[in-house]
């Protein structure tokens, strides 16, 4: 028995509109793709060459050599720090893959950018990554080499930086294994990474760990000592005991990791896929044409579902009530999911319907997928008098206290309190992935500029200032500038650069990415909430 019945698509994939929209979407994706292409050699060719000259592999080459052949690898937040002063990707690689048949989390520093030294975004990205590791209970592999903190930027780093070591020990306490391979220096704070890991592997003549390097030791206690004696792989393997496995070379280090994963005898705690995982009736490649490149143009969320869900099967909940919120059940790669998606803004009916649906899924331990295309809650006297705040509060109560895993797929806009109602970033979803057309802000740029314009005009009126031609031009210029600024600050790239999501993906990959995220979440227990806050009736 399967869940639901097959959705029928009404998308005309032969129309000019469709093709024009696909072209616009592809253009948005091309921009993302060109940014992604910069990441592996973000440190610059000179430093890449130097790294290789030392006989070392780049971090992504290590990942390729580590994961199971032909298995998929999902890199998380690859464009973190985009649009900031930090390097795109933040000088570290994070992702989810398969090693020895086990779904694991892998991270590694990019030694080619400032010697793998951490910048503020590195810590933020790492913190988010550890959150994913902990919440989803994924065995952790750290491919480490780092000069430690980027010292000139210590003010932005030092205080929060200690979190990663706390994260590591807490993982250990929770029974989530951590394996660190020291491929190069692990200096100062970096030395705690192996120190706090369950297992450590040091690569001979490469991996080192010391709290203070030879220069600092000379400064502090006037001892002159070489690196190997101070903190070399062999010393740590034979004398200090910091290293559990001494690897002959980089590949051997990765081999040790695989051997350790084998002895974990790792079992996922969540249920396995229970539904048939047949492909959708409609090609997921068409997802790119389901959403609109211009988020101001509405689109039908069921067209997205028809290309995300197994067999395009969907059992809709309350189809004729609060129809701007499309709720119902289906499955993705065999994992049962509750779907919530927007076909317009939130009214009281949409909010209460979604709140009920979320409670039902919690009772049944069914994970939730939120497909955002939301410009906000309805405003105006009718909405207010109808209790939009009271009913919106129910939705916020539901998403805040829901305990099943949440997955956000940003297929369009996510503005204002609508983002909160759809369990946005602040509501701690397990994973958030965005399509390249995604826009996110407190409200649409035009609305925001318009609101500010009205406020400015009202202020002028309040002070009794008459708006002459010159001032009118100035106000219009201000409004246009503000709209442009907000436009820039609400793009998918801007959002992903600030770690508001876990990555921008090609829409056609949504089923694969969501499948991997949902599967990873099932490494932990999947159990619904039993308690909520007070419901405002």
């Amino acid at each position, binding site marked *: 028995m399967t869940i639901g019945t097959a959705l029928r698509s009404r998308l005309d994939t032969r129309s000019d509109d469709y093709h024009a929209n696909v072209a616009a979407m592809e253009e948005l994706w091309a921009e993302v793709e060109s940014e*992604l292409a910069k*990441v*592996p050699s973000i440190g610059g060719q000179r430093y*890449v*060459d*130097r*790294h*290789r*000259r*030392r*006989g070392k592999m780049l971090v*992504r*080459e290590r990942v*390729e*050599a580590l994961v*199971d*052949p*032909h*298995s*998929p690898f*999902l890199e998380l937040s690859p464009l973190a720090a985009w649009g900031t002063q930090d390097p795109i990707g933040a000088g570290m690689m994070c992702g989810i*893959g*398969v*090693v*020895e*048949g086990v*779904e694991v989390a892998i991270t590694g520093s990019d030694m080619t950018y400032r*010697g793998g030294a951490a910048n503020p975004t590195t810590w933020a990205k790492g913190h988010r990554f550890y959150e994913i590791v902990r919440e989803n209970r994924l065995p952790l592999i750290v491919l480490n*080499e780092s000069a430690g903190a980027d010292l000139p930027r210590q003010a932005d780093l030092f205080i929060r930086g200690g979190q990663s070591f706390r994260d590591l020990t807490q993982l250990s306490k929770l029974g989530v294994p951590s394996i660190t391979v020291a491929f*190069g*220096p692990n200096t100062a704070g970096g030395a705690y990474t192996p120190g706090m890991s369950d297992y450590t592997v040091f690569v*001979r*003549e*490469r991996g*080192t760990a010391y709290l203070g*390097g030879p220069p600092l030791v000379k400064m502090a206690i006037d001892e002159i000592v*070489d*690196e*190997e004696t101070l903190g*070399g792989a062999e010393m740590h*393997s034979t004398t200090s005991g910091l290293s559990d496995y001494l690897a*002959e070379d980089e*590949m*051997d280090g990765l*081999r*040790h990791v*695989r051997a350790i994963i*084998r002895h974990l005898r790792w079992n996922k705690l969540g249920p396995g896929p229970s539904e048939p*995982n*047949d*492909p959708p009736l409609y090609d997921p490649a068409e997802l790119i044409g389901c959403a609109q490149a211009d988020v101001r143009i509405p689109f039908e969320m069921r067209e997205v579902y028809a290309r995300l869900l197994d067999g395009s099967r969907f059992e809709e909940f309350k189809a004729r009530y609060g129809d701007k919120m499309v709720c119902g059940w289906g499955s993705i*790669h065999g994992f049962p999911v509750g779907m919530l998606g927007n076909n317009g803004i939130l009214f009281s009916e949409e909010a209460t319907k979604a709140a009920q649906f979320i409670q039902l899924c919690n009772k049944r331990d069914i994970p939730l997928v939120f497909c955002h295309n939301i410009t906000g809650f309805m405003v105006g006297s009718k909405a207010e008098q109808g209790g939009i705040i009271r009913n919106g509060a129910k939705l916020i109560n539901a998403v805040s206290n829901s305990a099943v895993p949440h997955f956000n797929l940003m297929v369009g806009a996510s503005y204002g309190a609508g983002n909160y109602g759809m369990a946005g970033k602040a509501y701690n979803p397990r994973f958030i992935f965005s399509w390249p057309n995604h826009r996110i802000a407190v409200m649409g740029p035009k609305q925001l500029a318009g609101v500010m314009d009205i406020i400015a005009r009202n202020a002028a009126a309040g002070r009794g200032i008459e708006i002459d031609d010159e001032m009118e031009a100035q106000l219009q210029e201000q409004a246009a500038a503000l709209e442009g600024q907000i436009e820039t600050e609400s793009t998918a790239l801007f959002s992903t650069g600030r770690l508001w999501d876990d990555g921008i*993906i090609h829409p056609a*990959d949504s*089923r*694969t*990415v969501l*499948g*991997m995220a949902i*599967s990873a979440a099932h490494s932990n227990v999947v159990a619904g909430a039993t308690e909520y806050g007070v419901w405002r009736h």
Partner: protein
Amino acid sequence: MSEITTLLIANRGEIAVRIARTARRLGISTVGVYSEPDVNALHVDSVDVAVAVGGSTPAESYLRGEAIIAAALANGADAIHPGYGFLSENAGFARDVEAAGLVWVGPTPEQIELLGDKVAAKRAAIDAGVPTAPMLEIDGSHFDGALPADMPLPVLVKAAAGGGGRGMRVVRSVDDVGDAVSAASREAKSAFGDGTVFIEPYLERGRHVEVQVIGDAHGNVVHLGERECSIQRRNQKIVEESPSAGISEHTRDALCAGALALAERVGYRGAGTIEFLVGTAADGSDGTINFLEVNTRLQVEHPVTEAVTGLDLVELQLGVAAGERLPIAQSDVQFSGHAIEVRVVAEDPAAGWLPSTGTVGQFFIGDAETGSGRGDGVRVDTGFRDGAIVSPDYDSLLAKVISHAGTRRAAALTLARSMRGSQITGLRTNLDSLAEILVEPDYLAAATPTAYLDEHPHVVAAHGPSGADEVALLVAAALADEGWQRRSSGSFGFAPTGWRNLRTTGQRQVWASARGLERHIEFHVRNDSEQASREGSAIVDVDVAVGPWPMPLDDGTLSDDERERVAVRILEREISDTAARLAIEVDGRRLRVDADRVDAPTDDIDVVVGGQVGGQTIHVRSAVGAMSWTLMPRFESHHGDGDGGGPVCPLPGTVIAVHVAAGDRVADGDVLMVVEAMKMEHKITASGESVVTEVRFAVGDRVDTGDLLVALEHDGSNQVEDESA
């Protein structure tokens, strides 16, 4: 007349299977015999009952005449067919068989004795008017006279007994004749117990042509035409055909008439072969004919005669042995078309035809007859099947494959196609050489002297598919393997193969072929939709680069990418547990490929780990040829304790070379030892600068998975590189 109702087959291998086939068709019950290594051989399964006759060597088993006769009597057999080899030309055994009241399927003991002595046989041949060069009989083992006028140099000194090239000497100077006689006599004495030798002219660039005869006990003899068996290695035939395409009608008639005359003269009973060497005259026409010997038994290559005459020689043998009259007269014998037989042997042609023994993995002969009766395939006579053991105690013959067509060219090309589509794994075979011979221009032009293989070293060294074919088979192996690995993967198994959201490289693999090639391949499956991976029905595009990927140079930059790019489409892929069928298109050329996988010998060592499947061997075969590819492990094995140690053995095998000694200083990548395993040479290398403390195995030693081969101590003098940024 003595009816045969139960036949004991005193042989093994393909000939025992072949004799049993005819017996079964005639309703004759069969009794087989087997040695200990053969307890489960195909020939034992081909007979109704079989009797154990002893140990592993021929002397302990198939040569034990008494035990065989006892087995026949105990199991109600009324006749014994000796096949070829073993006891087939042993007159004493034939006599014992008859004395035991059993029918001997063969010539009379007297005929075997007479014709088995090459000197006596040649005398008889000369007396019967058989065309032949003269011979000079040697009295004793010394010769110090001059060669007679009709015996020009070079000459051949030959033993009267035995065969197979032993006791033979070619002499090119009159001064050497005496020594050659002494040596040949000595060798013949020790090998056959008879030191009698004789001298005859040595025909260079001759052809080996033989005539099949069969006679009954009533004085009727017919010849069944000739066979040419010139292509030989170490005086052993490897390609045989009928008729001979290299002799004139006149020569053919002379040979057949001569053979018949000799058979008639001795009243020959049963099947026999009169062998000749036909020299080449200065103008290229047939030259001197020399009678060689008579084989008083069924020949290995009899199927080509059966093909062109439509007769079943074993059926005729059984009839005349039972005392029946030959059912055919000479005028009834009609010849149709051309037949060629090749002998597939467990030998490595490129290594001087070194015998190869072991366990057969896959045993597959391409285009084998389907049994439709339309002759739409090749005939395969074999005693082997999947999993059979090829023992050093027996002949290296794995199979005879016979084609029959209207023309010699068609027969050759049909057989070549069969050879290309054949695959026998676990051993070295001559399949590739045979495929090459059958399409080689001199062969197709029938320019085939006995020196053919010496004069065509490239066919001997043939190693199967090359160029685009080799690439296609490599790609097929890699994609079959990819299908198997993804099929067995439970984690994120739904994702497209090798999926990345940030791709830096494709899947990189190193494969080694059974003939020692090493190929790097990098591929990226572009549109592995769920549909494709689940149902195997959709077309999948694969970008493939063949050749070593860019590697860092000394200055850290990558070497130039000079790889061959190949556009591949998987058009169809059906995968079961151990076999796969693929239709792949490589640069626009579609090829159907069958693939079989062999599970790695163990999954419990570092180099062969779960999900990793290093050491996995994939056998691929197609109409363009067959190859075996082994996926090289990604990870080198290091000694388990992680400190010093040294390389451990990746697979069970034998040490075939040791390149270092204790105390040697070695550098990263230096070859320390070579281990042959799975018929491949594995180089055992050093990782990092180190000093050899102990070489733990010597050449010839058996080594097992995980054995520490060479103990190394790391050289501590290395400088730790400065890593500061």
